[in-house]
């Protein structure tokens, strides 16, 4: 750019004459001093600006920069520092120099002194900021001179000035060998915060301003984000003292208050700290201090908190849902898996479950001893025996109800207090399952529970209630491991309900089956459904037979009606009606029927054979019952009365014998047995109910004793009297009750047998598919396949495999690296 000479004089306005650096700087320095003493109004910005402009144009920018820096350093180290140091009064000195400071001076003293110090520091900082803002602006032309700044790698004059504040103020000492001012600051702030935590009022803005200063300064002039003074000189100490404080506070709270208060306190403290970060210190610390408080008040104390006297156990015992919720919330903060709480809950559930199991065992075991003690009089003992049966059933019902109540209770706690947490839900399910499976008789008891409800419980209940009950039963089933055992019991109980017509509603029974089907699968209910089918078929059959008889024209008044159930022998657990495991095959088949009954029997056999050829009917007389009409001469206040008697087939046979006799003619036990061919034990049982039981004493026994012995004589009871028209003779062992030990063993043995088959079937199925498989793999696969039915014993599987090898279904692979088997087709 070449300018015409004549135009050069036009530029004299901007043309800078020779500038004397020292004089110009002198003007500036004097002005700066004015600025620092807040006398800027006397100064012309333009003049200062112009002076700086001149210096820079003369390429003296660097010199100016250093001059300014020197000037600032001098100012800060003399004026400002003195002012601040003056505020460090004895209470603060005590605080900053030793740990005993808090004890030696009163809070009020320290607070005032601290606030004074903080205020002065804040004021100095703000003044410095404003002045430096003005200075930088005046020196804008120098600042603008980027070439200079970047070339020399110097921080901007503003940053430099900030650094000077750090070096000259914060990093200086209050007196030789004293404390660094920054350290004083940190300690004072911490002290103030401590006061705040103790519930005293402090000036939050003052602290915030100082913290803001620390956040605005850096360790070095490079201004690295991670090297903020706040992060280096304050935050670590803050976190450290907070940790110490809360550690102590937590321990004190654990000792002094109950768990509920602790939770509330902890929650309050956490909120308070995050509030404090917002109002008093820096938001950047929020997450860190939260973590510290959580560590100290929750993570490290959770175990102690849960195990307190007033801990989780107490809360659950006393339904302190709100407090439980607090515990949950606390734990959830620090551990998404809620390990401690889950552990505690699981333990409590298991303890409570154990108590339920134990109660059930005690109740079911107690009555026999009670009955044994009270042997005064036959009545009582009889009642005792009845009670024993009852007691067992009651124990079973109570057990199931207790378990359900337990689950219910924890479900509601879970919903209300635990925010329906997934992890805890899993743990709860597992522990309830543990409770159920830890109890040896759970399968039986659950089935009994259903049985009881089917027989009595669902009476007077609405459909919805019934459904709820069924749902509950299904729920316990869901937890049950040994479903096959349950099936056995259920079949047995269902069988009795159906045959003895004890069930309240067949519809509900079917509903139950369909629920099981949904829950446990098709194969589980196959046999149960078959039982229902047999029942329906039998009804048709009975109707058909009746029609058939009518057609034959044998319908006379005295004819005996027959109602029959034809049962498929494989699906029905007929042994439920037999005496425990005794072989009574001959006893049944050789029963002697009187003519009228025998006719009916053969009549139906013929009818059935016509309908279904090739099927064999076996009469289960031990399961039948009979309705009879009998007249007793003195029944109703000495006048004759006809009663409808319902008794077992055996009872009927016995009573029919007395039809042909005179009233005073006795029959001995032996005679009755020869005439009927009823098995002795059954006979005795039936005679007991006919001749001993007070309400159904149709016969008189001689001698009058409770026991039926050989040689006893029986008479027709002339004097029988009862107000009731319909009399039901108690059928011994008709009700579903808890099994005796012997029965139990029987069931177990049977169950083990059927499990054996199931295992073999599973093994063969797997091997057929895989051809060869290692031992370990085979075991695992078998376990998986069978898990829906029951949890097989590994030893049992091994035995079954052995047996399969013996029978040449499998063979061992000789030279395999791991034990393996091969399928032999």
């Amino acid at each position, binding site marked *: 750019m070449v300018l015409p000479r004549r*135009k050069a004089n036009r530029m004299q*306005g901007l043309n800078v004459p020779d500038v004397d650096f020292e004089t110009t700087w002198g003007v500036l320095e004097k002005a700066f001093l004015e600025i620092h003493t807040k006398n800027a*109004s006397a*100064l012309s910005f*333009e*003049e200062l*600006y112009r002076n700086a402009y001149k210096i820079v144009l003369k390429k003296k920018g660097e010199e100016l920069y250093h001059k300014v820096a020197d000037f600032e350093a001098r100012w800060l180290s003399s004026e400002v520092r003195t002012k601040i140091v003056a505020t460090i009064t004895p209470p603060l000195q005590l605080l900053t120099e030793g740990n005993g400071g808090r004890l030696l001076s009163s809070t009020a003293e320290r607070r005032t002194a601290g606030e004074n110090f903080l205020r002065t520091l804040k004021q100095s900082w703000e003044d410095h900021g404003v002045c430096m803002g003005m200075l930088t602006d005046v020196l804008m032309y120098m600042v603008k001179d980027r070439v200079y700044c970047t070339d020399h790698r110097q921080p901007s004059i503003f940053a430099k000035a900030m650094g000077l504040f750090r070096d000259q103020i914060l990093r200086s000492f209050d007196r030789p060998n004293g404390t660094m001012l920054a350290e004083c600051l940190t300690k004072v702030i911490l002290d103030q915060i401590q006061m705040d935590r103790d519930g005293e009022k402090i000036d939050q803005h003052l602290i915030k301003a100082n913290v803001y200063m620390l956040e605005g300064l850096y360790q070095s002039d490079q201004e690295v984000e991670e090297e903020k003074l706040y992060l280096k000189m304050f935050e670590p100490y803050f976190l450290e003292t907070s940790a110490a404080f809360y550690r102590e506070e937590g321990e004190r709270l654990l000792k002094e208050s109950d768990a509920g208060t602790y939770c509330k306190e902890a929650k309050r403290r956490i909120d308070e700290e995050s509030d404090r970060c917002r109002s008093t210190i820096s938001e950047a610390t929020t997450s860190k201090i939260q973590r510290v408080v959580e560590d100290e008040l929750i993570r490290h104390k959770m175990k102690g908190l849960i195990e307190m006297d007033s801990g989780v156990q107490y809360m659950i015992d006393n339904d302190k849902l709100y407090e439980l919720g607090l515990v949950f919330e606390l734990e959830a903060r620090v551990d998404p898996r809620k390990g401690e709480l889950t552990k505690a809950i699981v333990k409590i559930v298991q303890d409570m479950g154990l108590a339920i199991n134990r109660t059930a065992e005690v109740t079911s075991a107690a009555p026999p001893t009670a009955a044994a003690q009270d042997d005064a009089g036959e009545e009582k003992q009889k009642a005792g025996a009845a009670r024993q049966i009852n007691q067992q059933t009651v124990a079973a019902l109570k057990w199931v109800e207790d378990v359900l109540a337990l689950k219910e209770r924890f479900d509601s706690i879970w919903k209300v207090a635990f925010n329906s947490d997934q992890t805890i839900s899993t743990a709860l399910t597992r522990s309830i399952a543990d409770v159920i499976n830890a109890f040896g008789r759970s399968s039986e008891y659950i089935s009994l529970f259903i049985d009881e409800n089917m027989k009595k419980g669902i009476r007077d209940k609405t459909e919805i209630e019934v459904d709820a009950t069924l749902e509950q039963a299904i729920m316990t089933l869901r937890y049950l491991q040994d479903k096959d055992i349950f099936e056995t019991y259920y079949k047995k109980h269902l069988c009795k309900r159906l045959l003895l017509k004890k069930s309240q509603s067949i519809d509900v029974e079917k509903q139950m089956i369909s629920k099981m089907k949904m829950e446990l699968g098709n194969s589980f209910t196959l046999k149960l459904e078959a039982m229902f089918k047999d029942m329906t078929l039998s009804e048709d059959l009975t109707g058909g037979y009746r029609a058939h008889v009518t057609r034959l024209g044998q319908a006379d008044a005295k004819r005996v009606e027959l109602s029959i159930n034809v049962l498929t022998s494989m699906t029905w657990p007929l042994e439920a009606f037999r005496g425990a495991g005794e072989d009574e095959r001959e006893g049944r088949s050789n029963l002697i029927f009187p003519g009228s009954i025998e006719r009916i029997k053969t009549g139906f056999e013929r009818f059935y054979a016509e309908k279904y050829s090739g099927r064999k009917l076996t009469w289960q007389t031990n399961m039948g019952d009979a309705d009879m009409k009998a007249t007793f001469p003195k029944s109703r206040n000495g006048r004759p009365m006809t009663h409808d008697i319902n008794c077992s087939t055996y009872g009927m046979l016995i009573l029919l014998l007395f039809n042909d006799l005179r009233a005073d003619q006795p029959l001995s036990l032996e005679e009755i047995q020869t005439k009927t061919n009823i098995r002795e034990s059954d006979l005795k049982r039936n005679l007991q109910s006919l001749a001993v039981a007070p309400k159904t004493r149709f016969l008189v026994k001689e001698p009058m004793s409770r026991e039926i012995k050989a040689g006893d004589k029986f008479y027709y009871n002339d004097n029988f009297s009862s107000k009731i028209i319909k009399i039901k003779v108690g059928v011994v062992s008709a009700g579903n009750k808890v099994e005796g030990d012997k029965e139990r063993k029987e069931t177990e043995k049977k169950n083990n047998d059927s499990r054996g088959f199931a295992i073999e079937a599973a093994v063969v199925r797997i091997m057929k598919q895989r051809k060869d498989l290692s031992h370990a793999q085979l075991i695992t696969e078998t376990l998986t396949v069978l898990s829906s039915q029951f949890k097989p014993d590994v030893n049992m599987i091994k035995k079954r495999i052995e047996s399969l090898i013996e029978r040449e279904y499998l063979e061992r692979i000789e030279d395999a690296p791991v034990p393996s088997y091969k399928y032999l087709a």
Partner: protein
Amino acid sequence: MASETEYVTLVSSDGFSFVVLRSAAIKSPAIMRMLDPAYGFAESKTNTCHFENINGLVLEKVCEYFYYYQKHKGAKDVTDMDFPIELSLELVMAADYLDSRDTHQAGFIYI
């Protein structure tokens, strides 16, 4: 009179006064800071800025530019501002002094 007035006075080295809208004048960071009441320099007290190294001719053009800029701020396809070619250098120097960097670009760039 420390309050912010609507108009401020800019005075040239040769004594010419230009009364301009404050909002237009503070286009220059230097002027903006001079007049900032927070700092409380003499200029902000009197709402008057003296420029010892800018003459009336140049300052007039600078003021014209302030208005020109305020008027066309953000608009597209604005016709360039006219200025006498002989003032170019002085204008550039004044722009530099007042830190009106945009001045270079908007009007004086093609000297």
